[in-house]
Every structure is written in C-alpha cells, then in structure tokens.
C-alpha cells in the first residue's frame, strides 16, 4: 500500500474551479500530480455518467469543482450539481458502495491555494482508503 498513488479524475467548471486551478499553477502552489483535469463549462453539466464511468473504469476518486453557491455563471448549475451528487451517492450507498470517493467542492477563481489544498487533502484521504475496488471488477 506504501507506493499506492491514487488517480483522480476532476471535472472543473470553467468559470471558477478551472480558473482556480490555473491560479494555483501561476502562483506556484505545490500539489500532488495525481489529478487529471477535465474542463467543463459548469458543474451542472457534469452528468452522472461521467462520474460513474470514471469510477467503474478504475479512477480512485472523482472531484467535481464548481462555483460557490450563488456565484454560478449560469445562476443555478452548481445547486443542481449538488442534488445530482447527493442522488448518485445515495444510489451507490444503497447498492453497497459506501466509500467516499466522489468529492464535490466549491472553489472560486481566486482560490488557487484552496484548490491545491483540496487536491493534497483528497490524495491523502484516498491513500487511506486504498485502491478503488471497482478496479478489480472485470464483469462490470
């Protein structure tokens, strides 16, 4: 388990978290390189299929980054994303997958440090959890 490096797929909203991730880079914040970022126009555009496919195909964690409540460029996308996450998590919970591998976080364009800290923290937590058991499910 020592050398387990979790792989995180991140869906980041264009207006806030993606720009926040940019800021983390330009301000030379250090964070672990375990994250693969996918640029979305809004966290509300992250359909459950993206998240579940990433997990089933073996991602150890999925991070969805959106604007703080009230800040959504499209008014309400982040609130809808939040409902969708709650629904996915409850479904997974009901079918016996209770691990906390889907993270929804509000990170604004000015919060480069928060982005770096979030990724660092998520990697630590996923290391504690170990590899995603779905990796081994060949019949999935």
């Amino acid at each position, binding site marked *: 388990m020592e050398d387990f490096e979790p792989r995180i797929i991140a869906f980041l909203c264009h207006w806030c978290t993606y720009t926040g991730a940019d800021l983390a880079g330009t301000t030379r914040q250090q964070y672990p390189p375990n994250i693969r970022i996918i640029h979305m126009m809004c966290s509300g555009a992250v359909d459950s299929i993206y998240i579940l496919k990433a997990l*089933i195909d073996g991602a150890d964690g999925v991070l969805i980054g959106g604007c703080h409540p*009230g800040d959504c460029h499209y008014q*309400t996308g982040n609130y809808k994303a939040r*409902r969708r996450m709650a629904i996915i998590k409850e*479904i997974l919970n009901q079918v016996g997958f209770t691990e906390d591998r889907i993270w929804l*976080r509000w990170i604004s364009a000015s919060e480069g440090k928060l982005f770096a800290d979030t990724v660092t923290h998520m990697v630590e937590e996923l290391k504690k959890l170990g590899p995603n058991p779905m*990796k081994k499910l060949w019949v*999935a």
Partner: protein
Amino acid sequence: MDKGGLLTVKNNDPVETLRGFFRDLLEKKVVEALLIPKKLPSGDGYCQTLIRNPEMLMDINPVAPTLPVQSARIISHLTITDPGCKIGAVLKSCEIRAVIELVKFLQVKLDRLVLIGVDCLGTYEPSDYATMSREAGEGVSITGELLRGAREGKIEPRKGYNLRLACQICEYPIPQNADIVIGLFGHDPQREIFVQVRDHLATELAEKGILATDVEGSPSRDMVGKSLTEERMKKRDEVFDAFRSGTKDLQDLMDALSTCIRCHNCMVACPICYCKECVFRTPTLEHKADRFLRWADRKGVVRMPTDTLLFHLIRLSHMVTSCIGCGLCDSACPNDLPVATLFRAVGQKVQAMFDYTPGRSVDDEPPVATFREDELQAESGTL
C-alpha cells in the same frame, strides 16, 4: 371535491355495463375519442386501442388484467401536439402516475385529456394471460375471476399463476389524480359499480343523463382500498428487505445482474425513460480497440461488451427519483433480472431524501429539476 354515483349492473355483467357507460361518454361527446383496452382478435390478450366510433366498443375491457405496454407513452404521443379533440384515456393507477410524471417533464399535456382510472385488480404477464385464456377456454372470464374478490378486497389469482410482482407490492390499487374513477372495491360487481367524478365533469355527466352523482362517497370502497394497500405494503417491505440483505456490496449487485444481456428492454419499456436519444443508444461508449485493450491490460480481463453495471447505475441515477413502480422493466427483461425491485428499493430511499412521491401531484417538482439553496450543505464538504 369529487362526486360519486352508482352504475346499476345489468345481467350480472359489470364489463357490459361499463361498455354502456363508455358508449355514453363517446356518443354524448363527453370525450371525442377513447383510449381503452380491447381484446385482441386472437382472443388471448388485450391491447390499448383508440376508438372514435361507438359501434366499435365490443370486446373492450376497462378492467383488463394485463399491462402489455405503459400507456403513459401512448398518452405522450397523443397529447404532445394538440390532438384537436378531447381524449378519454382508460388507465391503470400506475399508468396515471406515469402520466403525472411525464406532465412534469413536459412530455404530456393534460388540457385535452380526460383521465379515467379503474380500481386495479392487478395484472398478469401477457404470456401468462395468453396461456391461461387458452387453458380456460371459451366462456370463462379471467377478468371475472379477479372481479369476484373486488368486494372484499381478497383478490385470488387463477390457480397455478400469480399476478406480476409489481402488482403484488403496489400501494395504489385505487387510482389518484383521475377525472373519473371506476370504483370496483367494496361493492358487489354483479350489482353495482361506484363511479367517482371530478366536480367539473359531474355536472356534465348529470346533464347529459349519463350518471347521477348523488352519492356522498363509498366508505366500503375506502376501507377495502386501505386494507389492500396495507397488505401490499407489507409484502413490499418483505421484498425490499430481501433485496437489501442480498445486496451488501457491488459484487452482490453484479451477481444479481450477471445474466444481463444489454438488450435495453428495461429502458425501452420504462415510461420515465422518455429521452428520444439515450446516451446508451449513441456511439458515446463505442470506444476504439486500444481503449478496450488498455482496460483488459489493467484489469487482466474485461467482460465484453462492457458497461453492464454502468447502464443500470446510470438508469438509476437518471430516473429513480421518478420511478412509479409499474414493473414493466421486470416484464420486459428476458432473463428475469430483479430490475424493478432494484429500482423500487433504491428509489424508496432516494425519493425520501427529497420527500418526493412520484405520481402524487403535478405540482410537486421532480427532485432533479429543482433545488433549495439551503439544503445538502454537507455534500460540498469541508477541507
């Protein structure tokens, strides 16, 4: 408030009496077209039919004990553009609930629709019905066998057969949200049928001499409906408990779904899956060869085609909040997977999160279409 009236049954034939009632509705232009189950020429099943000519009402059976397709789909086709006339639709309770959900997703318009519900005795699988109708032969009414239990609410399926599981665990034997309800419970169907009518229609029916709505209500029907509901909820809880105790982790779920052949029948049969182009019907998941080989490399082996679990989880996440429990996914599954139980058991918990009951009212907003600013704070976590 709703009003009630009693239809006197002639010649001990409730279906014939109802045929007269529907003939009146058509002839006296309460509705200009009628969607109603009618016996197939083969005699071994029923299908929904659209009838404009009152002379063609022979062989209709509003109490038909099969549900070959979800009529909510048909209603969507008939009302999404203005049909130009008033359509009366004779539906089962689960079909009306599906209609209510589709109204909220802008797939059904109610303005030209008269929803006619029928107290539901339950339905057989169409294949079972075909077998038993051949077995029973001429002159035996399978509907009549079920109707016999309507008064006491003790519905006995034909010996050697059972009603569909979805019907055995259905909490809504009495339809809600209908403009007219044919009440079968709590009355002797050989003698009388209770008809419940919305206020605006009651006057029209009385004026046209179709039905005098002079009865307060039917306490005996309410009582039978209540006890049936309780009985079925008990059975439902047993089914859910068994499912939950058998599904402790994802492997259990995959074992339960292991014989899925990805025919997508459950999706096609589902009234809530209304998308014209489903992602599973697009090339989105048709990857290039190297992608599959890479997964095979990583996992050692991958099942082909892929995406069984993904399909069922995505269907859950897209429509479980609106699952009305008609169980047509179960009927459509060629391998008898417990898809309806999966949807209903998971749905019960997810719907409870938002205090949402699908099919209850057109005024309830579906959970996926709305939000509250102050809810689910914990979802976005803290560092």
